[in-house]
């Protein structure tokens, strides 16, 4: 066990901070392509932090989680998203529903909320990663916020995926990850969800000639 070394804790904290930074970057990003890049970076950070936790605590199953993350979130999903975008031809900037500084301001409020929420929980947890729980929760909430403020379908899906990243990170930091079965199940869910949503995109566009979700409001009258 080399958990005694303070540097692992610090490195994990640093990675957590970068994760949060990326969440904010996604919140303020208009371009879909950059969003995918940021999502990829987030996956990479997640993978790295899981690996560090695995090394620091000797929990070998976490290596597997890190591997799955790497495969799924850094390679497969961005690839699918890129393909989707090329097929759908939606590369342009997307205006947000609320302007970006306001969104960021709400984001900061959420971070304060999440940090304070996590404070009592993380005191209970005995893991070396416990202080990052607040950041994980903040990442989940920020991804949620991002989904709310986007009107186009693709950024919403990226928000959804990023939310899953936050949850995954929360699980790692609170209890050193979920049981393997659950983790595999979630990975599969995400993949299937992605495929379904991809089909869904084409359907929306065929129906409305656009991926603007605001068009779905029209369905109400039918």
């Amino acid at each position, binding site marked *: 066990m080399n958990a005694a070394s303070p540097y692992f804790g*610090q490195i994990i*904290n640093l990675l957590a901070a970068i994760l949060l930074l990326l969440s*904010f970057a996604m919140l*303020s990003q208009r371009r879909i392509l950059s969003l995918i890049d940021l999502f990829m970076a987030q996956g990479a950070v997640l993978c790295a932090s899981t690996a560090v936790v695995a090394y620091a605590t000797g929990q070998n199953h976490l290596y597997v989680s890190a591997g799955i993350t790497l495969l799924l979130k850094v390679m497969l999903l961005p690839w699918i998203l890129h393909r989707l975008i090329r097929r759908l031809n939606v590369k342009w900037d997307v205006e947000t529903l609320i302007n970006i500084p306001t969104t960021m301001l709400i984001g900061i409020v959420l971070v304060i909320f999440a940090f304070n929420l996590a404070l009592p929980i993380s005191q209970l947890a005995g893991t070396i990663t416990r202080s990052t729980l607040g950041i994980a929760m903040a990442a989940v909430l920020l991804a949620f916020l991002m989904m709310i403020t986007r009107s186009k379908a693709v950024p919403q899906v990226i928000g959804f995926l990023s939310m899953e990243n936050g949850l995954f990170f929360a699980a790692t930091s609170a209890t050193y990850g979920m049981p393997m079965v659950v983790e595999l199940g979630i990975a599969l869910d995400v993949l299937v969800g992605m495929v379904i949503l991809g089909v869904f995109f084409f359907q929306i566009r065929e129906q409305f000639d656009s991926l603007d979700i605001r068009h779905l409001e029209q369905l109400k009258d039918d």
Partner: protein
Amino acid sequence: MNANLAAGILLQFLELIAALVLAPLLSGWVNQCRALLQNRSAPPLMLPYRQIAKLFEKEVVLAGNASSLFRAAPYIIFACMALASLIVPTLSTDLPFAAAADAIALVGIFALARVFIALAGMDVGTSFGSLGARREMLIGFLAEPALLMVFFTTSLISQSTSLAIIVETLGHREFAIYPSLAFAGVAFTMVSLAENARVPVDNPTTHLELTMIHEAMILEYSGRHLALIEWAASLKLYAYSCIGLALFFPWGIPQGVGIETLLIAMPALLFKLAVGGVILALIETLSAKMRIFRAPEFLGTAFLLAVLAMLVHLLLEAGK
């Protein structure tokens, strides 16, 4: 004790001379890197010196209704920037002058210079001048608090707003990773780009008046006044670079005073500045200038990131 103080004052003086000499060189170096990165043939490294010398030779052409404020402003701005470069620890942290102004006062100096340059821009009463002044103040009112928050983050870490002590804490105490500095660093980079009229916000080499910010304010200046303002602008870039280096890469700034420490500090400073210049040129090459109304968004993001840096510090680092 007195000998120490004398040495300190000498070092302080040396720091000022270094700033005055190195500042145009840094601008020249950034321009050269930028040209090379953009596949242009690079201007000579010494060009800024020659430009300043040439401007000093030229006579001043003054608009008829320029007031005395217009003529005094270049000296005030130059003095502010010189003072700023005196305060930032570059060669040593043991400066007798460090107590005179802390990080908040440093932000105040930059604000003072900004107010004077904006007022000078409005003085002649041309449309471009006041346009530039308005935009400069727009950039300023968002960049200034962001810079202050970056300093606050480091102050929270080191329990002090004195720059010398901040640098000592970050550079010489036990090595530790501060995640909050990641946020502060990003925010600081964004602020420095805006404050020094660099590409995503302003273009230092533009010739299109409608897109100008910094250049628009100084359109009416000529001769020695313009030379001083150009020199002050390069001093500002130098001071910001040194702040960045001092806060985020403080290694190599010695604590003591002496010949042998200088021998380490000087090459370290030059090396870090050279690398910093390359990075700046790279950022400028890779990004495109934004519309002026994207600038508040850009700076607002920087501001909020700096606030986040403080929050992250409180969550992850405080109480350990």
